[in-house]
């Protein structure tokens, strides 16, 4: 099945870069569409990212506007998600809050993935005592439960967006490193890597030009998974009161505060909780779709 007769597809490699990129995106969505659930997940994620970008611009109110005489309104046309006990518009607060719940995990995931990839490629390719040392160090970091480490660290450096990002990077960079390391281990003895060595290629060339494309599927799936866990963690920290501090509208903290008023204003709880649920589910379904596309059998 792998052989194509002469003439077929032979023009492909000579197409310009942007055309190839466009084709790749189109084929990505086409493959996603084969599994509608994954497509829905991906569209959800895209919607949330748009919300994060433009949410404050389309929100009818600021997150901290106290609307006179509109406290504890149930959802209506004017206040789609209702208002809280202080008369703040929940819809606006959720829109404003989208930015942080996407940006903090997003930035943290990007940093973890970048660092984890560099270290993972390096130790996976080199092996030897450096690998042993770094792997052991990462093992001990991983032997501390995630939330425990997060609590201790935030307790010490104080809850701030940067603090949360640092915590997430420390937690997830070792995991990404492990995944990339083992993917690299699988191909480091391949003929094409050895051929590159015999050409006298430099280390960066071998790592980023020869190995990286092959670990990209694992990397993409892992990045999506880490993003989902990072959202989970950020929201949980917010819920415990250790996330971004008031008055900025953190979804997790909104849920936590809404608990006390649940009997009178249940919508105060449902909408931020629902937003978190949708976002996390969306990212998970997208990650699963990516795994299907890449037929990546790694970690579940």
């Amino acid at each position, binding site marked *: 099945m792998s052989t194509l*007769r002469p003439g077929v597809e032979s023009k492909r490699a000579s197409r310009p870069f942007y055309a190839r990129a466009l084709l790749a995106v189109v084929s990505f969505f086409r493959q996603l569409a084969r599994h509608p659930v994954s497509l829905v997940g991906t569209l959800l994620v895209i919607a949330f990212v748009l919300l994060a970008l433009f949410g404050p611009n389309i929100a009818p109110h600021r997150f901290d506007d106290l609307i006179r005489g509109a406290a504890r309104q149930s959802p209506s046309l004017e206040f789609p998600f209702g208002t809280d006990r202080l008369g703040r518009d929940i819809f606006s607060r959720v829109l404003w809050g989208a930015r942080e719940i996407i940006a903090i995990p997003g930035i943290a995931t990007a940093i973890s993935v970048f660092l984890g990839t560099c270290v993972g490629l390096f130790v996976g390719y080199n092996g030897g005592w450096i690998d042993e040392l770094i792997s052991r160090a990462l093992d001990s970091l991983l032997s501390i439960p995630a939330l425990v480490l997060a609590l201790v660290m935030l307790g010490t450096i104080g809850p701030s967006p940067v603090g949360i990002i640092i915590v997430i990077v420390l937690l997830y960079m070792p995991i990404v490193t492990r995944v990339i390391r083992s993917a690299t281990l699988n191909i480091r003895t391949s003929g094409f890597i050895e051929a590159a060595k*015999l050409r006298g290629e430099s280390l960066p060339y071998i790592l980023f030009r020869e190995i990286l494309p092959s670990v990209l599927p694992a990397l993409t799936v892992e990045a999506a998974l880490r993003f989902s866990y990072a959202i989970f963690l950020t929201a949980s920290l917010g819920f415990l009161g250790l996330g971004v501090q008031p008055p900025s509208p953190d979804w997790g903290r909104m849920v936590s505060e809404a608990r006390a008023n649940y009997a009178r204003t249940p919508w105060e709880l449902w909408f931020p909780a629902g937003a978190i649920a949708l976002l996390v589910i969306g990212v998970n379904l997208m990650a699963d779709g990516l795994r299907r596309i890449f037929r990546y059998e790694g970690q579940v």
Partner: protein
Amino acid sequence: MNSTIPVIEVNNLSIDYQLGKRWLNAIRDVSLRIDPFEIHGLVGESGSGKSTLALALMRYLAGNARISSGEILLDGENLVPKSEHEMRHIWGKKLSLVPQDPLAALNPSYTIGEQIAEVTRLHEGLSKQQAFSRAVELLAKVKIADPEAVVRRYPHQLSGGMQQRVTIAMALSTQPRLLVLDEPTTALDVTTQAVILDLFRDLIHDNKAAALYVSHDLGAIAQMCDRVTVMYGGEVMASAPVHPLYAAPLHPYTMGLLASIPRPTEGVETRLPTIDGVAPSLAERPSGCVFAPRCPVALPICFDEKPPLEIIDTGRMGKCHRWREIRSGELVMQTAPLEKVAASLPPDDNYVLMAGGVSKRFGSPSLFTRLVGGDSGYVQAVDDVSVRVRARSTLGLVGESGSGKTTLARSIVALEVADDGQMTLLDMPIANTLAGRSQVVLRELQMVFQNPNDTLNPYQTVGEALARTIRRLSSRAMTQTEIRAKVNDLLDEVRLTAEYADRYPAELSGGEKQRVAIARAFATDPALVIADEPTSSLDVSVQAVVLNLLKDLRAREGASYILISHDLAAVSYLADWIAVMYLGQIVEEGDTEDVYQAPSHPYTEALLSAIPAPDPTVQRGNIRLEGDVPSPRNIPSGCRFHTRCPRKIGAICEAQEPPWLDAGDGHRIRCHIPIDELIAMQSTPPDSERNEVSL
């Protein structure tokens, strides 16, 4: 047709596979019969459908496959309409499978005894106790030493040869009507294979079973089988008793296949006849004769109309429009090697490479082991080996797995850093590490790797891969256009069209990938190319193409080779000097012709004796090696070969390292037995019992 009722009879069987929403035809209109006591060979290249057919014969299909027509009669009873539930009473009882990869085919979590006992408890209602003692008897029958201990072992604790014995013991435990052997020796070394083949044939005959023996190896088929069916592209091409099939093949495919096997007797100047092209994939099988696109004598009718499977004479069938012309001699297929290689310069006495005293050991203990202690775990892969390669010649490095041949080659190109040894390339001393080697050394020393599937980066086109090598290593700066032109030249050298430059490796067949790898090696006009089993994962007909190519390039480019292989026949086709390795040392080296003749090191003798000749009239040698290759962690004292040597002369072999004996013309043998005695011994076989298997 004679009157015996066949054990199994397949009539017009077709099998489809579901791919996405389409059903693709995998096996088309196959008929086959196996008589009682017959060992029937099923031979074909990869993708021919032979394994699918073998399993379908047992009425066992993959989840996405279906039998679309035909019948399978086991003792006259049609299996096709039977449900899976009904088949479970036949499987293991009347039909048994001896699988391809015995380690994977045994459950890792149960002991050998439990797994064998399971069958007899199920089908013969034996008690647990009885079934276990039966398992012990069965293991004794397959000549496993100390069966009482082996029943309590787990599969991973046994060697490959032992595992395969276990699977046949299991298959024979219920006296089945038909055994299906699916490439049972492919994973084994040639000396182990020889022992296993002897054992299998005797057991099948002793048990009065019939067997279907599936293999791609025409040699093993010739030695094992009574009748042979040849498959290609999901169809039966020919079926005949083994002698006429090999002596007077009537189908162009069979003829081409037989001709393309390299034989040790061929000279250095000849090229192998090849079958051009590649086997069709499931989706693109031609509507006419499935072999027509590659057939050298195809007529227009062959492309339009599928030939019928005709009965030629008793027990002989063929599927070709032209078999009558072939039989009558009107159509002569040129199957003997006809082309001569372009005259090459004779090897001169300058040495391209000299490597002296190369040693390499593996397994530095981990940090933990160093702290806590425990066994040192060193593996001495190469132990003080010296080789030389003359200009424009080929050194063949031969040995079984664990012989250190690959490690030696990798040490020479510095993919492994030799612990010891001096090397010179073109009279320049070269470093043992890659970092210490200049660009000139990198350019002059190239390598072709074993596995065609990972030799090219899947994310780079063929053109990108070749261009990168040229740009990195060429002796002068080249423009984009020059590089492009050079890429095209290289592709042309390996008989690929220029449009292959835009292809990705996934779009190439195994043979094409290996040809690109050869092109890459020649991109720098190297002085020495090291080829590590370059054809071991290719089909016979494709292997011939690659071997010819290597031969042509040597003549044209004046390069030298080190060719590493476990296949003595393939090596002899290219090499003019051969070194035989065993457990990290060279035990014999010399001119190719000399190595193939007495006197030989007893190990070389055993290797030669073990090769199944692709000709049923040639009796194989009768030298069989005992036991398994010792672990390189634990190298035997004295002569490394003494634990398995059939010509061991006594305590001296265990105590002292043997000396190098000179047999003339540089032919050297490392043995305690004097040359004259070796010659005398080897001109008369040691004993005449052909099938003796000892452990």
